[in-house]
């Protein structure tokens, strides 16, 4: 059963009080806040719309959208992982992190973002910093390749 946006907001506020709710519209919410995975603090935006009880949904569509607001992610040309590993590109070139396999049962709207999305941002950023430093992505990962 999907959790309501109020439940998500309450859990975010309780577990990650530094994340602030910056916008709310019906069942959608936008949070911004800091994480410091290693020795760099990043500002992160998490946007999410909780699906309605009666709504048929796809995890691919409803999964939270995560963007790194600052500092900007640093792409690397010529890397086998691509310019940036494990991201999705929006129509205008915006980058959002992809931290789950939508075809698995790793995540569903019945999960708290506070217990999944925020820690997974940390996991992603640690792997990202390691990739930038060493060229190796040591986190989990699989690329979605064009058919």
């Amino acid at each position: 059963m999907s959790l309501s946006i109020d439940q998500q907001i309450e859990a975010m506020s309780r577990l990650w009080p530094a994340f602030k709710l910056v916008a709310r519209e019906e069942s959608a919410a936008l949070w911004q806040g800091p994480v410091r995975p290693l020795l760099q603090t990043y500002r992160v935006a998490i946007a999410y719309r909780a699906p309605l009880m009666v709504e048929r949904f796809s995890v691919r569509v409803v999964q939270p959208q995560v963007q790194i607001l600052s500092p900007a992610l640093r792409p690397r040309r010529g890397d086998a992982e691509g310019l940036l590993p494990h991201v999705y590109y929006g129509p205008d070139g915006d980058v959002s992190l992809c931290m789950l396999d939508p075809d698995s049962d790793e995540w569903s709207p019945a999960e708290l973002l506070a217990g999944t999305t925020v820690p997974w941002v940390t996991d992603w950023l640690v792997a990202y910093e390691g990739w930038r430093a060493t060229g190796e992505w040591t986190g989990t990962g699989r690329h979605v390749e064009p058919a």
Partner: protein
Amino acid sequence: MAWPPPPKDPFADPLDAVLAEIAINLQLPPGLHAKAVDRYEAVRTYIERPGSPLHGRVACFYPQGSMRIDATISTRGTDDEYDIDIVAEITGRDDGPEALLDDLEAALAGYQVSKIVRKTRCIALYYADGMHLDVTPARRTGLKEKEGVIAHAKKGVGAPQARYVPMNAFAFGEWYCARTPTEERFAKALNERLYAQAGMVFAEADVHDVPDQTPLIIKSVTTVVLQLLKRHRNIAYADETGRVPPSIVLSCHAGHAAQPGMGLADMVIRQARWTARAIDDAARQGRLLSVPNPEYPAELFTDRWPENQTQQQGYARHLHALANGLESAQRGNVQLEDLQAWLRVQFGERVVTRSVKAFNDRLGRQVKAGQHGYTRQGGLFTPAAPAIIGSLSGLAPVAARAHTNMGERRFS
């Protein structure tokens, strides 16, 4: 709201963890210590053989310097050479410092090593695998255990420059070790990593009861930091041919600065500032740094360095820069690749590259295995002992869970 800090663990803080990896990469490989002991015992047997000028005259033969206090690292500017310092206490007739060195040199003649070099205070034996064994002849002069003198004489220069220099390396070693007790959690975590890197198992629950096959190589934060500072000095002076700040000065300051329980980065800052400020104080008073042996004040560790203000103030600047950089990493914002670039300048390219790779590999392994937690600031917490994570109140109450980073690849 102030959250409690994560608990003390050698690998909990990312900066401490990277420094720990560097320190692990500076250690003598397991087995080399035993080889060094075998070699110095063989040297003793050789110089005492019948017919040797030192036959029946070696009262004792003991490690001094870094080997005595477990702070040996690879030699200046290289990754594959190791210095071992031994004192040979000689009894019998006293024909002066030059003769003392002459006797030792003659006693070592023909010993099977790559090269034997007579220096001003010791005879250096060079082995084909990169190990150097410096044997320093000493004479006992005091009642206190092993209080004595060593010879200082350049061969052929003549008696006027030759002299005896006060020395009690043994008492200094005892003093240092008493001030730097084994820190159990730290020692266990780093020795496990060190032995694992060599493909060996170090599985002792009690660091006071280690078997001979896997001796405790890393014991205290203080000594590991001393090793890091020696490496930092070696890199800073890699292209210089003159005298460099002596290890014994750094060791003595490390002993004074010792404070069990500190994290690695904090201790690097403490020791670096300790020496830098001692130099600053001396410079303000227009004098040179003076560091006596705390157990034998007649022995001055600074008798050959610094030679002038330029030398000592140059080193103080190196040390302040190291401490400033670490403080900046602790308090500010630095990404791993930028930290790596800075650390390469401080500790050398190869060692740091290897260490950051090891750090990254370990984080990846622990995250994939779910052996991690999260700090209240969204920090990754990957302790040496992952089993403790569930019981820690300082962490965010969020369990690590498996997930798959997906995404598309774009190359332009």
